[in-house]
């Protein structure tokens, strides 16, 4: 039975299936609990809430694939939001220019991480733990602890968050969500169809082999950090647009939320495994939980973090226990199939097994 199942579906796909079912289950559950849950308004709120963590998570995942981690993303988001915000209070530029500025700044910050990790040989967790603090300090120092406020920003900042591309029966596709979706699709394409993307999997999957195979591992790891920084920069721009008021604490704590989403989405902390679709589901599940518990009167919102913690624990345990077994079973099924095929090919011999 499992054999037959395993011939058609790989364990990784199975996990995504489970995650999808859980996500839909959560939606249905809250639908029965919260009035007007599938209202256009609620759905719009949910999708907009997804946008920023999703963009950061896509970048984070690229780094995690290479068996590294970037904890500095939250400071990058905060710093770019602040710097671009300050720039905008003094200069009138178009949204596009501002977004590109934010991404470039993010890339630069990511490049510092990438240099230290890929070329300086400093472990990623140490590097980004350091830059998490350092980028925040830069923010505090250049801001003199002052705040960017909506009032000082150009008018388009005020209208951008509610800017809607398509509306179907009051269900909006907001610009912010569209950006996040474009990033997600781009991430999917890069990881699936670019040699660079496949190399990221290779590097995390077996770093020694990557070196032996002559892959440009240093450069690729560096690039992964730059991309992660760039996307965090873009998220910084989105953050500025969405919240308008940027204080020195902007986006603090986002890093672990994003890592949690990536982990729940099935990317391995040890690199080499994970899909964009999984990350999307991971971000969605966490966001649904957070947003819904804030609005659910059946349970105090104060239990939401406890539930979130439990959820992560369940996700990783299911992964370790169930998927570990499945993967082993899958490998065995495959081998048995191959051996059987070979026996047939080689004329049967004395069917030993």
């Amino acid at each position, binding site marked *: 039975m499992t054999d037959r199942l395993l011939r058609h579906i790989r364990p990784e796909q199975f996990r995504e299936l489970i995650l999808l079912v859980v996500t839909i289950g959560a939606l249905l559950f809250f639908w029965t609990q919260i009035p007007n849950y599938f209202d256009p308004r609620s759905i719009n709120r949910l999708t907009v809430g997804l946008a920023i963590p999703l963009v950061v998570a896509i970048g984070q995942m690229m780094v995690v694939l290479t068996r590294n981690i970037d904890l500095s993303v939250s400071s990058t988001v905060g710093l770019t939001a602040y710097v671009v915000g300050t720039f905008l209070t003094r200069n009138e530029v178009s949204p596009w220019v501002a977004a590109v500025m934010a991404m470039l700044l993010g890339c630069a910050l990511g490049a510092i991480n990438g240099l230290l990790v890929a070329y300086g040989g400093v472990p990623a967790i140490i590097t980004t733990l350091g830059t*998490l603090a350092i980028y925040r300090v830069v923010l505090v120092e250049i801001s003199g602890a002052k705040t960017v406020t909506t009032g000082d920003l150009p008018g388009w900042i005020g209208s951008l968050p509610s800017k809607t591309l398509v509306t179907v029966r009051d269900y909006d596709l907001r610009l912010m969500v569209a950006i996040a979706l474009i990033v997600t699709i781009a991430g999917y394409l890069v990881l699936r169809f670019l040699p660079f993307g496949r190399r990221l999997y290779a590097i995390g999957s077996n770093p020694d082999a990557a070196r032996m195979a002559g892959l440009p591992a240093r450069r690729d790891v560096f690039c992964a950090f730059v991309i992660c920084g760039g996307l965090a920069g873009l998220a910084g721009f989105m953050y500025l647009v969405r919240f308008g008021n940027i204080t020195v604490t902007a986006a603090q704590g986002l890093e672990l939320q994003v890592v949690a989403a990536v982990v729940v989405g099935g990317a391995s*902390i040890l690199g080499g495994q994970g899909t964009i679709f999984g990350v999307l589901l991971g971000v969605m599940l966490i966001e649904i939980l957070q947003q819904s518990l804030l609005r659910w009167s059946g349970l105090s919102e104060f239990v939401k973090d406890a539930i979130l913690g439990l959820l992560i624990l369940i996700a990783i345990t299911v992964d370790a226990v169930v998927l570990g077994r499945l993967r082993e079973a899958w490998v065995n099924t495959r081998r048995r199939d191959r051996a059987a095929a070979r026996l047939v090919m080689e004329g049967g011999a004395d069917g030993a097994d």
Partner: protein
Amino acid sequence: MGRIDARRYLRRWESLLVLFLLVVLAYNITQVSNFLTAQNQANLFQLSIEKAIVALIMTFVIISGEIDLSVASMMALSAAVVARLNESRMEHVLAIVVALAVGLGLGALNGFFVANVGINSLAVTLAGYIGYRGLAQVFIEDNSVGGFPGWFTRLGQKGIIGPITFSIILFFIMAAVAGVILHYSGFGRRVYTVGSNARVAIFSGVPVARTRIIIFATSGLVSAIAGILYAARLGAVRSSTAQGFELDIITIVLLGGVSIFGGVGSMVGVLLSIFLVLNLRNGMTIAGITGNTQTGVIGLLLILSVLIPNLVSRAQGRFRRTPVEPQFQAPRPETVQSAG
């Protein structure tokens, strides 16, 4: 990539820390007028004493090749438990015992998932990081709960010997005990063994799973102690108590020369790092440098302390480094994958 001669490596690291410490001390003594007063010295410890205490057990955790991100959340949870029980008029000593038991139990639970279920500790304790603070929220919601008995807050705030508080005395006792256990006991030897190569440990009959569970359970217990001391010092508890402490604590330990890959590190290094960080913070605070900048300076120190030796040895061309450092305990078991 195992470090072939860990001892020599550590000795070099510790010398570097001593040098840093001397520079900072020299600056503080000459530039800060009241630096050497007993009160200031006591303050210096008192203000970060909870982090220093947790850093002691975090040293064990990281040397054993694991990480515990849940310590600060555990501090908040134990403090919240004490506060909640105190509020519902439970005998205060009993409340403390319950909170300690919670710490021990949830720490052991972390350990169970790491050692017996086989999940990467980063993932397990990330769940704890979110979940334990979540439990604290369940207990005290977003209130600030205080009203502890007088003896409890006095214990956290008033000096026992001059300005030296109970927490400071406890820290030094715990540091001595931790040092002896890590470096001179059989358990300490096992911690290094498990962190260096868990497979060899299993083949040698070392109780690997039990060692890990003990480490994580102790981590929970010590975090609970620190959380309770923190509650006593502040006199009131919120669910956001000790937020962000975990990264400070890990930074202190790594700055002390403990390898994030496990198997390498010494208590002397960590103590030096604690003294360095405390003095640095004290000097900077008195010089009017804000908390954020302090953290940044320490972060920079952390990166430089790994980067500089790397660059030096590369300049000397002694060995090539691998382009991609494995992030956490390589090699990776193929059969089961860790997180997700």
